[in-house]
């Protein structure tokens, strides 16, 4: 799980043959969406993610329907005679219980909230900061670029798992801290790409043209250059989300993330480790949901990257033809 190896291909909007498609120009966004619609894997991933989001949103509902709380210890009803967790299907627990008698289904639903929240929010923060830092560094160059680029290099070369653990242990584990820590270690990945793009776009003639019109620096950065980097940034961000989710799960597993009694897929798994392998449901279900989520995001990210890459037009054209019989 190395952030620096997430690959991004430099992409440009696919060229459109003149005169085709009517008067309204088809924006890159519309083209991407059209292509994604033909990609079955992408659609499946989106479907899975929608389900998980619904699960997360509906967590209180699930808790109310089953009558089980995600955090309240429930040893009397929830464990067997030896204090061991109940297997799925017994006593109204659809997926079984954990070592403290809590309903695993309910906990997984609440865990989904944590994972999605951390994943999306940390990535969003990292993206905004990375884009701003990268834009300023790449566009202005000079000493500002030297400082910012060095800063990003330093952050990227930290042994970040170790450092994240250090930070979390020093300040105490809490949800906002976990989000900030993950965002901090991710922003450099985006910043580096954005900086590279800004550096190359800065030399283009349309930037010179904007200068000659009297445009100010901020306008050029955000109105002219930024649209040219939306594509690689979106791909990278989509691929950073699962990395962030994994990061959070790992931290929670080590006891340095979200703490008890809050449910997180990571700390559920660390509790499970303590119980032993007999209670397989305690392991397998959180694992499955975690893997489903990260897999779906990764597949979606790859699909978005393919959709943005003009070189794959042949594949999409083929698919479109298949859908419309002569």
């Amino acid at each position, binding site marked *: 799980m190395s952030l620096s190896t997430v690959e991004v291909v430099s992409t440009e909007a696919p060229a459109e043959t003149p005169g085709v498609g009517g*008067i309204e120009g088809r924006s890159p966004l519309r083209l991407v969406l059209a292509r994604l619609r033909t990609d079955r894997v992408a659609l499946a991933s989106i479907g899975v993610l929608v389900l998980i989001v619904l699960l997360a949103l509906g967590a209180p509902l699930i808790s109310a329907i089953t009558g089980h709380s995600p955090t309240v210890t429930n040893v009397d009803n929830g464990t067997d005679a030896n204090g061991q967790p109940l297997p799925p299907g017994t006593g109204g627990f659809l997926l079984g219980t954990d070592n403290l008698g809590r309903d695993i289904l309910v906990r997984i639903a609440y865990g989904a909230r944590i994972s999605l929240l951390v994943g999306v929010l940390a990535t969003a923060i990292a993206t905004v900061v990375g884009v701003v830092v990268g834009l300023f560094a790449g566009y202005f160059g000079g000493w500002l670029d030297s400082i910012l680029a060095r800063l990003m290099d330093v952050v990227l070369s930290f042994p970040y798992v170790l450092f994240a653990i250090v930070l979390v242990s020093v300040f105490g584990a809490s949800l906002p801290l976990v989000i900030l820590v993950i965002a901090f270690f991710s922003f450099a990945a985006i910043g580096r790409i954005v900086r590279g793009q800004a550096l190359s776009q800065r030399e283009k003639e*349309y930037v010179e*043209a904007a200068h000659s019109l*009297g445009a*100010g620096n901020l306008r050029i950065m955000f109105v002219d250059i930024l649209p040219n980097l939306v594509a690689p940034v979106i791909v990278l961000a989509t691929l950073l989300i699962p990395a962030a989710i994994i990061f959070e799960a790992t931290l929670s597993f080590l006891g340095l993330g979200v703490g008890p009694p809050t449910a997180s897929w990571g700390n559920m798994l660390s509790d499970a480790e303590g119980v032993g392998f007999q209670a397989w449901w305690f392991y397998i279900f959180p694992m499955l949901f975690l893997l489903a989520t990260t897999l779906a995001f990764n597949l979606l990210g790859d699909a978005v990257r393919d959709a943005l890459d003009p070189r794959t037009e042949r594949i999409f054209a083929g698919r479109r033809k298949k859908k419309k019989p002569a």
Partner: protein
Amino acid sequence: MLDVVPSPAPAAGGEHLLRAEGIVKHFPIKEGIFFKHQVGSVKAVDGVSLEVRRGETLGLVGETGCGKSTLARCIMRLFPLTAGHLTFDGADLSTLSRSQMRPYRRGMQMIFQDPYGSLNSRRRVGSIIGDPLAIHNIAKGAERKKMVQGFMEVVGLNPEHYNRFPAEFSGGQRQRIGVARALALRPKLIVCDEPVSALDVSIQAQIINLLEDLQGEFGLTYLFIAHNLSVVQHVSDRVAVMYLGKIVEVAEVKDLYGTPRHPYTNALLSASVVADPDKARSRDRIILTGDVPSPINPPSGCRFHTRCPKAQAICSTEEPILKSGAGDSASHLAACHFPVADGEKIASGKATILHAVEGFLAEAPK
């Protein structure tokens, strides 16, 4: 509809719209491990003075690397000037900062060479042309759109293509977009940096005709930069020739093409395309020896002396100044110690390899 754009302030500063005096632009070359220090400089423009009269088209020609594009950008104040004075419409623009320059940008605009690179491929055409209106707060919303569509029509584009992307247009159409963008602020001066060099020949003619029509309609003054001499001859009133960062000759177009005084101008003209094959065969080709010297280390004295067929001792020590020769009109200036007289043949002035080989072959036993 086009009158809605407020016309720029009435003329000040007299007959000359633009006056450049002693423009110098040096680019520093830096080296160093951590902190770079300057070790030399590229002397792209090294003391250029010229004037552009209102309403005229001044052509600027020269080889690649002579500094004409840099000069254009100096005039547009896209760089700070290393030295020199720049007066536009009576106002001194020499040392203004970027924000101070902004209001003056409405008076001068630029058309770029590359129809593909000079437009932001991620923005719609309407947004590109309307950009100057947005930057200078001239109009908003529907009013701006109407203005932009007006300009599109003027340059020969279909105003319904307002929402298209540049990729959906051909090269010639993209250049028209560039022209519309330059026009949007109703400037007085338009600097055209090789506007047709990247286009097919048939399209070149269309764009040139468009520029000429617009000049009449909008009262524009052009600084037209190119390396194609025939095109420059067609559009210009006066022409200036540049070599290695300096102007070597400037004259009315018929004087320059009829009686060029500077040896370099003669060489350029002798290499340009002539339609009549008989004439082409019979004329003398002046072939210059050597390569264009590096602008980092330009030759001493007259910069052209290393390649000049007429060079003599004084040429390597004393730099000639632009002055009009005896018998020429006052507007015909050349920077040469030994200007080419009428009818003078300089092709045989200095032996070149070609001549040596021809001579050798002529003497060989048949």
